[in-house]
């Protein structure tokens, strides 16, 4: 106290009221108040991994919604058995070398000749047949053999066999097929050919001794349009009218000889009667290039499946989309039901405590003791025939799924129910219902949302596991699930890995993203992390 302030020394005129006229009010906050959820949202936005995960989830959801629309009238909804187990193909992406639909493999010479012949036989100039080497050099789009990488001969006994390492377009490799059409349909195809310039119909094949399949099995194969001997080796006819097998050191030297069906005047025949009715009503049997026939059937669109096709010929992208849709719908339903059931059950347990709590805890202890796999199996056995496999799977999930949520809610209620503010509310005359709903339950909301979101990957995993094991059968023409796709692929996937790769990748991606998203939510809803920067 160095210097004491003497009030009396202050001049009187300086002692005036600070505020005389106006009233003093609290100043308004300039920034908005941050509530619990707003705070959580802010914290969630800082977590980049969760944001990315949420975006990926949104993309997958969009994929599941949009793809079926694209396919509504098109390919995916019906199985095309000609194009089954095909690898991914997209004409845009194939320009940069991915999703080409090509397959590089080792072929015998006769097999490769046959593939090359499909390309040669689909050329516009049908009767002027070049050698295979020339045909491959032409760079024809419809030529299945895209590239011959290597050739080598293998000594088998006293014969030498040629083998080729070649890249083949698996979509064009399907080649020609026989189709049975009405005469009116035939006229339509002709008109479409005229209009677009795309050749669909090709001449029929003569059924004689030079037709390999016809001579051995009595059935004509639409791809063997060139003259062969009974071993499938190409032949040529010499001047005396006898067939001699073409000798070659390399298949590019081979010049095939056509074996088309001709009428009495020597013109090519494009159809035959396939029986039934008279001349004007009978069905036609025609030989079509399937690739172009597909375009005819799909308004000129070429067959391209970004994820390939599955084991029965469905578009895999479409099947995956409806599989994802099923998984997500299932997850959302279970999320909602578990949320509601768990919240109600846990609130009652936690709030009333005592005997009610003990009894309810015992019930949930017993229910949680039943292994999920047993529950779902029993539900499938009892209910699948009555209400269908999907609802019974849903029931199985619901039967034990809410227990986790309930116990979380219960713990939170035990924490909050004896706090002063609750007592204050009770003193003011609030009823139990109001205290539960208004005062305690909002405190538990963050926890249970998080736990319910974190349960979603579990649902996706369980669903895929059950349908993979065949305990739940969700497959069908209209529905499928990701697990069913995996189980369909399980026996054949080593030769067609994409059937396993894409569904497995999507499941993994979904589970990773939901886990990241759930973790982000957990951190966001944890107020103790407020302001903590790592």
């Amino acid at each position, binding site marked *: 106290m160095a210097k004491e302030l003497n009030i009396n020394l202050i001049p009187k005129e300086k002692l005036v009221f600070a505020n005389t006229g106006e009233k003093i009010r609290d100043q308004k906050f300039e920034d908005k108040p941050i509530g619990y959820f707003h705070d959580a949202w802010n914290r969630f936005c800082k977590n980049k991994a969760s944001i990315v995960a949420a975006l990926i989830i949104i993309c997958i959801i969009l994929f599941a919604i949009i793809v079926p629309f694209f396919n509504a009238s098109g390919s995916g909804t019906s199985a095309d058995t000609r194009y089954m187990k095909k690898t991914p193909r997209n004409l845009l992406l194939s320009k940069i070398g991915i999703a080409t639909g090509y397959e590089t493999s080792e072929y015998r010479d006769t097999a490769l000749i046959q593939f090359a012949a499909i390309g040669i036989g689909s050329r516009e100039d049908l009767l002027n047949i070049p050698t295979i080497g020339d045909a491959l050099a032409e760079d024809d789009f419809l030529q299945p053999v895209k590239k011959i990488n290597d050739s080598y001969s293998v000594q088998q006994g006293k014969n030498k066999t040629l083998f080729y390492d070649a890249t083949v377009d698996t979509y064009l490799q399907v080649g020609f097929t026989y189709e049975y059409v009405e005469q009116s349909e035939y006229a339509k195809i002709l008109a479409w050919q005229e209009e677009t310039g795309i050749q669909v119909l090709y001449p029929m094949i003569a059924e004689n001794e030079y037709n390999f399949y016809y001579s051995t099995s009595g059935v004509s194969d639409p791809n063997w349009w060139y003259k062969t001997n009974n071993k499938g080796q190409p032949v040529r006819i010499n001047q005396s009218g006898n067939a001699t097998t073409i000798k070659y050191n390399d298949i590019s030297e081979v010049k095939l000889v056509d074996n088309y069906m001709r009428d009495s005047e020597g013109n090519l025949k494009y159809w035959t009667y396939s029986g039934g009715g008279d001349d004007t009503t009978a069905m036609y049997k025609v030989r079509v290039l399937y690739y172009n026939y597909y375009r005819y059937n799909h308004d000129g669109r070429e067959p391209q499946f970004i994820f390939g096709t599955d084991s029965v010929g469905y578009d895999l992208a479409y099947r995956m989309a409806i599989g994802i849709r099923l998984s997500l719908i299932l997850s959302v339903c279970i999320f909602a039901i578990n949320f509601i059931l768990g919240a109600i059950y846990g609130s009652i347990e936690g709030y009333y405590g005592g005997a009610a709590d003990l009894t309810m805890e015992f019930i949930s202890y017993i229910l949680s003791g039943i*292994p999920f*796999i*047993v529950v779902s*199996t029993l539900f499938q056995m*009892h209910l699948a025939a009555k209400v269908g496999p999907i609802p019974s799977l849903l029931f199985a999930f619901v039967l034990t799924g809410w227990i986790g949520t309930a116990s979380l809610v219960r713990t939170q209620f035990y924490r909050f129910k004896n706090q002063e503010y609750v007592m204050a509310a009770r003193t003011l005359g609030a009823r139990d219902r109001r205290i539960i709903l208004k005062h305690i339950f909002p405190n538990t909301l963050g926890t249970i949302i998080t736990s319910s979101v974190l349960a979603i990957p579990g649902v996706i*995993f369980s669903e*895929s596991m059950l349908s993979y094991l065949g305990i739940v059968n969700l497959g069908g023409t209209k529905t499928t699930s990701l697990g069913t796709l*995996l189980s369909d692929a399980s026996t054949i996937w*080593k030769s067609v890995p994409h059937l396993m790769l894409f569904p*497995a990748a999507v499941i993994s991606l979904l589970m990773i993203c939901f886990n990241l998203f759930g973790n982000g939510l957990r951190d966001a809803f944890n107020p103790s992390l407020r302001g903590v920067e790592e």
Partner: protein
Amino acid sequence: MIKYVIKRLILMLIALFCISTICFVMIRLLPMVPPEGVNAAQTKVIEDIWEARGYNKPILVQYGIYLKDIFTEFDFGTSWKIKSTYPVTEVFFPRLIPTILVNLYSLLLAIPLGIAFGIYAAIKKNKWQDHLISTMVMLFVSVPSYVYAFLVQYFLYFKLRWFPDTIYSLADAGGSYLTWKMFYSMIPPILALSFGTVAGLTRFTRAELTETLTQDYMLLARTKGLTRSQATTRHALKNAMVPILPMIISSFIGILSGSMIIEQIFAIPGIGQLYVRAVQQLDYDVFMLDSIFYTFVGLLAGIVVDISYGFIDPRIRMGER
């Protein structure tokens, strides 16, 4: 303590009884179908056996007979489809061995790795090593185990041809599950099972250890003059182990039930595969025993975890309010 253990055990037995009653009733409500591929005379014989065993009596009476057989003769019924007319116990218990072996091997591989990665990540907290490990853990924890199985099968069998795609049959491997050849063919499923376990354990260890590393007693230990590694191993690690050990113990109990989908993919003749076959072929008694077994293992694991806390951490007094 003993009182608490006994109380928990009694509670477990009650739960087990309730669940098996529910399962039994649900299963016996399903129609019994005679096995396929037998002639009418054999079907008649089997149906006569069913009649004699009381399969056509009221369900509660059937349950009484079932319980009596279990307690007097340890007879869990008869397999009618998978191994026709053999007692279920003879079908079931031999299959426990491969299940246990595969899971045991994978745990023995996963536990040291998981703990080591976890400790490393915790020590290097917020450095790039930690971020790398944490990211990998996030990926590996989320990806389902069967995806690892496919990857392992594809690369180790299909591409590299190092291992067979499924495990050898008992005859191929020399008549025992403990031969070297059998172990060799079990390596792919062991690997497939390990990825997830390693990741889970790493995450858990890291979380616990980072928490203990920031405790005050660690500071005290350092001020006393312990080096960082001494303080970490003697003080932090011991305390971090308190929640980790029960988890490991429970996973050792979990090896009894194994992984159904891994057994299916690698054709391991274990109880998971038996369960799937029992469901597909509707072999009810096998299904029943399998269900009881899974329930039992699950309940037991829960109890052992709770009790082991009391043994490991002297601060926790069991059964006190």
